């Protein structure tokens, strides 16, 4: 394992300090916590939005803290959901009197830790609502399991809920918009290479030179199927088909597309992939009114890509285009 790091135990701490040092006018770290908040938090009269999760998904989630997106991001250890006390500190720090929305990705650990924090905050009289993002169609949606994972589609939830909160909406309205995004966003990923949790020191799985993994999550978990290397266009088709089996896109639908690199995928490859994905959507008669290409919800240094499609309506479109001033995402 080769990584740019010092003490493996301090990696999250040093990363958070490195972020604040890079963006001193935008971000502030709550003392003694792993929470990054907007410099001017709490914003009075605005619903606060808190997200977070394990580290290793950078720029998620700290990179999305700022005007028009998140008020706070709580960082856990690498790939480990943060603890309730940290989330609770974040909630307290961003409550501007209108309550706080927790944007949680659907992992048992995240759900439980954020829920416990919500209970702690409610006990102190702060209104807290939560939404759970579960956009990953790689995983069967079943009422017998904990259901689908939350992956890159979360970025759209941050963007849209954040924009509405910035306009002064009430907590239940912001929650409703977030739920609408969640209902209409689906993602699917694949990887060309695994990643190594720093403290583990070895990769989460291995892939031969001619193998790729389809349906990988964002935690170095093995995916749902292993197959031989394929051209980008075929991969785009596999990911799209799986999403569309759920989404049933029709000619004339308007969508936003997110092409998300998993950590070490060069922009060159992401744009080649977008070229292939755009052709598939065009063929279907689907209008892509917004495409976002980059590394937004990563899995350490994993190589690979996820495709996310968000079905739009007028409200979602206008919130998607609203300004955002975060360190990673600007609009």
């Amino acid at each position, binding site marked *: 394992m080769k990584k740019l790091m010092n003490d493996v135990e301090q990696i999250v701490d040093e990363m958070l300090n490195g972020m604040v040092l890079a963006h001193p006018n935008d971000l502030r770290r709550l003392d003694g916590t792993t929470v990054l908040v907007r410099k001017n938090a709490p914003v009075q009269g605005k619903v606060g939005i808190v997200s977070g999760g394990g580290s290793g998904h950078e720029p998620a989630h700290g990179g999305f803290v700022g005007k028009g997106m998140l008020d706070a991001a709580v960082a856990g250890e690498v790939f480990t959901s943060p603890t309730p006390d940290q989330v609770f500190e974040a909630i307290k720090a961003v409550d501007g009197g209108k309550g706080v929305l927790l944007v949680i990705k659907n992992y048992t650990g995240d759900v*439980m*830790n954020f829920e416990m924090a919500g209970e702690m905050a409610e006990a102190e009289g702060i209104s807290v609502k939560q939404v759970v993002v579960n956009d990953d169609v790689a995983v069967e949606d079943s009422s017998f399991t*904990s259901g689908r994972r939350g992956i890159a589609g979360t970025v759209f939830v941050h963007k849209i809920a954040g924009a509405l909160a910035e306009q002064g909406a009430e907590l239940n309205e912001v929650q409703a918009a977030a739920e609408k995004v969640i209902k209409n966003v689906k993602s699917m990923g694949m990887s060309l290479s695994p990643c190594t949790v720093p403290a*583990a020191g070895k990769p989460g799985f291995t892939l031969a030179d001619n193998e790729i993994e389809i349906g990988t999550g964002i935690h*170095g*978990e093995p995916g749902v199927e292993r197959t031989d290397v394929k051209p980008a266009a075929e991969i785009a088709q596999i990911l799209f088909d799986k999403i569309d089996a759920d989404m049933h896109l029709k000619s004339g639908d308007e969508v936003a597309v997110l092409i998300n690199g998993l950590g070490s995928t060069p922009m060159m490859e992401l744009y080649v992939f977008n070229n292939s994905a755009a052709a598939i959507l065009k063929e279907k008669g689907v209008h892509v009114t917004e495409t976002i290409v980059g590394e937004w919800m990563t899995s350490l240094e994993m190589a690979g890509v996820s495709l996310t499609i968000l079905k739009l309506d007028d409200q979602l479109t206008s919130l998607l285009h609203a300004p955002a001033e975060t360190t990673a995402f600007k609009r």
Partner: protein
Amino acid sequence: MSITAEHLRTWLERFHDEILEHKDELTDLDQAIGDGDHGINMARGVKEMHKMLNGKSFDAPGDLLKAVSMTFIGKIGGASGPLYGSALMKMASRASSDETLTEEEWINVLEAGKVAIQQRGKAETGEKTMVDVWAPLIERFQKQKEIDWQLFQTTAEELMQSTKEMHAKKGRAAYLGARSVGHIDPGAMSSYLFFKTLAETLQERS
């Protein structure tokens, strides 16, 4: 012979040692079917617990359990943090402020932990999680006046092994579907270590 806070301290220090000893193994299991941090998470938790226990004294088992639960909730994170943390929290309440507990009472304390895990995690038995150790184990020994701790330990071990052939329905392993079969659940293994060290400690008393 009754169970005191000091017994629990001995137990949990032993748990600390065993987790550190098996840290890589737990992580390997979690790499196979999860995200590869269970050993790291549990190690972080027990190290913090060890520091916390050092220099603190407890009159009642419940006080110790409460303190450990706070450490676990605040330091482990992931799925295992809230699960172990909630279990110990509810165990502490069930133990109330009694300074000693009979074995029968102690099993009831463990039962409160099991209920807490199922409330938090909503997993049933057969879903390939720590519940597959906790629930059948405690159900089997409940309402017994005297526990055969040797049997308790081997039962825990068998239950852990039984998760190997299960098809995961909860936790990260569920994302793998059928590919999860053939690997022991990491949380089941840490739970086995939890109960194994408990059995060893309580056996040594006599």
